[in-house]
């Protein structure tokens, strides 16, 4: 780790101002990715702006529009939230599958989405549920938010404030963990809305993506059987020591079926 300046922001406005002031600043939420990166010198910011002291960024609220979750709400808070478990169980289920208890007690929703790790769980749920990401400047639909590996639509000085997850009729998230990291080797979120089915895949590609042929099949009939004969393409999928593209493509099919089963459960 190299030396950096630490700044504890009092409000979103304060954090944004500081972020725009130059000095190669970065936002610190839970730090579950950023801090290890600093230790390995993969990231060398001049300043860390800590969002932990901004109360308005944290919290869970259910409205008719859906589940509003503040950006610095931890995975453990989502996983343990009784209202969410009743209204949209896929969210606490996915949050509970992230990392280990230490990570879940520190890591945040906003941090995970902003980082857009290709193997993170939350991007699949955000894209699968068609979430809306609110920032200090605008709102961005999940379909436009995840733009590439570790890349998002966030601009400079832009801070995620909360995320709105619409409530699906039913949904499931099935994850096959990387044995070493327990990130998703492949994770698939399936959600059925009145407007149609959404299927989002994480872990398999450079960034989370939707599986339209699976969506179409499930639109006509929301069941495992509807996916019979459907396979995911291995083109452009990740290939590493844990899983080649072929195996990942196979797992996409298996996890999609399991997500459907969970949704129907």
């Amino acid at each position: 780790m190299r030396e950096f300046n630490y700044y504890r922001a009092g409000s979103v406005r304060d954090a944004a101002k500081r972020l725009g002031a130059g000095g190669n600043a970065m936002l610190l939420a839970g730090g579950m990715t950023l801090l290890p990166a600093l230790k390995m010198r993969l990231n060398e910011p001049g300043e860390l702006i800590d969002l932990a002291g901004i109360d308005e960024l944290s919290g869970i609220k259910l409205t008719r529009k859906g589940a509003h979750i503040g950006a610095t709400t931890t995975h453990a808070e989502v996983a343990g939230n009784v209202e969410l478990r009743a209204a949209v169980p896929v969210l606490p289920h996915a949050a509970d599958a992230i990392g280990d208890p230490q990570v879940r007690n520190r890591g945040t929703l906003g941090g995970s989405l902003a980082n857009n790790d290709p193997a993170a769980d939350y991007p699949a749920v955000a894209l699968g549920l068609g979430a809306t990401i609110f920032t200090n400047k605008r709102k961005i639909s999940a379909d436009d938010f995840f733009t590439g590996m570790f890349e998002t639509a966030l601009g400079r000085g832009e801070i995620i404030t909360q995320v709105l997850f619409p409530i699906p009729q039913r949904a499931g998230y099935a994850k096959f963990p990387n044995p070493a990291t327990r990130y998703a080797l492949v994770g698939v979120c399936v959600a059925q809305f009145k407007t149609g089915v959404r299927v989002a895949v994480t872990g398999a590609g450079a960034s989370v993506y939707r599986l339209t042929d699976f969506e179409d099949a499930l639109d006509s009939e929301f069941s495992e059987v509807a996916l019979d004969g459907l396979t995911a393409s291995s083109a452009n999928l990740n290939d590493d020591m844990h899983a080649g593209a072929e195996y990942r493509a196979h797992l996409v099919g298996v996890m999609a079926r399991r997500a459907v089963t969970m949704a129907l459960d």
Partner: protein
Amino acid sequence: MSGDMGIGVSAPRTEDRRFITGRGRYVDDINLRTQQYAWFVRSPHPHAEVRGLDAADALKMPGVTAVLTGADMQADDIGSLPVAWGITSRDGSPAVEPAYPALATDRVRYVGNPVAVVVAETRTQARDAAEMVNVDYEELESVSSATAAMEEGAPLIHEGAPGNTCFDWEWLPAAMAPDARSNTDKAFDEAAHVVSLELVNNRLVPNAMEPRASLADFNPATGQLTLYTTSQNPHVNRLLLCTATLKMPEHKVRVVAPDVGGGFGSKIYHYAEELTVCWASRRLGVPVKWTAERSESFLADAQGRDHVTRVELALDAEAHFTGMRVDTVANLGGWLSAFGPAIPTVFYAPLLAGVYRTPNIYVTVKGVFTNTTPTDAYRGAGRPEACYAVERAVDEAAVQIGMDPAELRRRNFIQPDEFPYQSPVGQLYDSGDFEGCLNLARELNAYERFDERRRQSQARGKLRGRGMCFYIEACGAAPSQAAGQLGARAGLYEVATVRVHPSGSVQVLTGSHSHGQSHETTFAQIVAERLGIDFGNVEIVHGDTGEIPFGMGTYGSRSLAVGGTALYKALDKVEEKGRKIAAHLLEAEAADIEFTDGQFRVAGTDRAVSFGDVALAAYVPHNYPLQELEPGLEETAFFDPENFTFPSGCYICEVEVDQNTGQVELCDFVAADDFGNIINPMVVEGQVHGGLAQGIGQALLEHCLYTPEGQLLSGSYMDYCMPRADDLPNFVVATRCTPTPFNPLGVKGCGEAGAIGAPPAVINAVLGALRPLGVRHIDMPATPQAVWQAIEAARSGE
């Protein structure tokens, strides 16, 4: 009174109080005034010429004291890192032992090879400056796999080792020589069944919880050097520092291995980093400290295993094993680590008989240089590789001839009345009850009800498999003379001093070293039992060459069998002298004195004197036979065993495989071990659990993987998969012990058994689950992808 903490009791661990409350004192906890910090500049290339090194920018960085190189080391006449075991090829030529400088001078041969060291006032300054050291590398072609390195046209790694061959060895122990090969070939010619397998024993990273660290403190005024270091054997380190590398007289060097957090073999060796900080401290006149980052541990700690083996087993028509041929290629890495050549040869081949009466065995091993981190002993060290080859072949034979694997093993067991048993590969097995152990394991596994469980798994959509392994291993390498004939360059004895204080409390100074093994508890139990004193009145001191006599440390599950016996023999001497003192105090003949429960008593009378009173008399010799007996009560014993000890055991494992994903889940694991007599059952159980976890890790999770060129792919926990609690089932462990006759405690050793026996048990279980799908073979680790690929290949008829 031993209190209630004598031999055989699960005494709570003395050391836990400080470990659990965070009061352990590890090397990195030690800080000295004026100390500076070392950071190593390491090669990013698997193979390169070092054409030059420019430290000018680094030296301008704040806080930097020095940038030192291999050339500086050579100028100071620092010796290269020694090889501690010489192996002789079958043509009679010695193994190629290239000089291994702690800091590379002209060529680097693996990623992480140290090239220079920066010393600065803070760790961060040293690290920052290290990034400014400009090394001019000319990259060379490189190769990471041993089989590829043997191919024609492979890059040559050491000029003196054509074909990258370090040695080409065959095992001809006296029991078989010189006809081992022809006799074995004949057995195959006459065999009713022949099994042949090609096996890869995957490379592993040791991953001790505490990364290596060294703090060297040279005092220019006295010429004394003190080295605090993460070592399993501080005296061996001092010996090598003094005689091979730093070249200082031993009375001027003290090596301290304080609390050490795990070793598994990786902290046996005299490493480049500890030598370098000693030399830097002497050269600069300040204490110099180095603590590895975890990423460095992945590159710089000697790694384990990495064999490719062809094993063949011949059986007669009645399913008796008649011959075995084993041909192994061992990957030694870019240079030789201290015991690198010994592990795949003399610690491997002599175990290839397993627990069976196979009469003819012929073994050949090629040791090969590659552009990878050097390999050496890692928990089990040669025996896991041997056990894996034997037990995979035996299971394969059972499948081929359609016999229950337990029955095939039973039919070939060495019988209890055959001990001591001379195996054809040169070991004299001490004791064992293999059938008894097998039956115990079967009972614990509910062996007969497997089909029922398999059906239940099937109903859940899972494939259930069961695997078995019967291991035997060798602990406490011995005797020194025989090892010397096989190439050992060190002694294999152990030493203990029992220092009785005037009040009757006892300090034991042992040459053994605990880095997790619980010596402070188990050795104290032996003393409490023998002297009849309270467990709490015994202190075990280890790890400081300034305090303890010259011992060989802890490796190869030797502490109790060798170090414990040295302690036992020192206690014999204490008892003998105490008897003489008591005889004087009681005005009786020494021959008439009995010693039980801490009382010296005139036999058949109630006249007695306590151990404490005898101790007091020894130090306050007012009423004492000074003409015949020296005052004081302190005795030392050195013990060089006449043989190894041979723990054995039967492991049965059951798995469920999800054929949709390839995921293997361990459902049950039964371990029935024979460790000889047991001092502390709880500690033994803990050792078994740890060993099993590591063995299961090798079988299913852990894989040290390089690119073909030698870049480490699994260089962090993001890719190197360590076993976690939720990867493991609840272990069912039990013991069925036959005491060894080769030491008076009757103990064998338990530290490595789990890591030796678990891998074949797990893989045999995985194959058991997959055979109905047509899968015949899988290599470790059986990761989900590997299992899925094996299933796919079988389905498509490959």
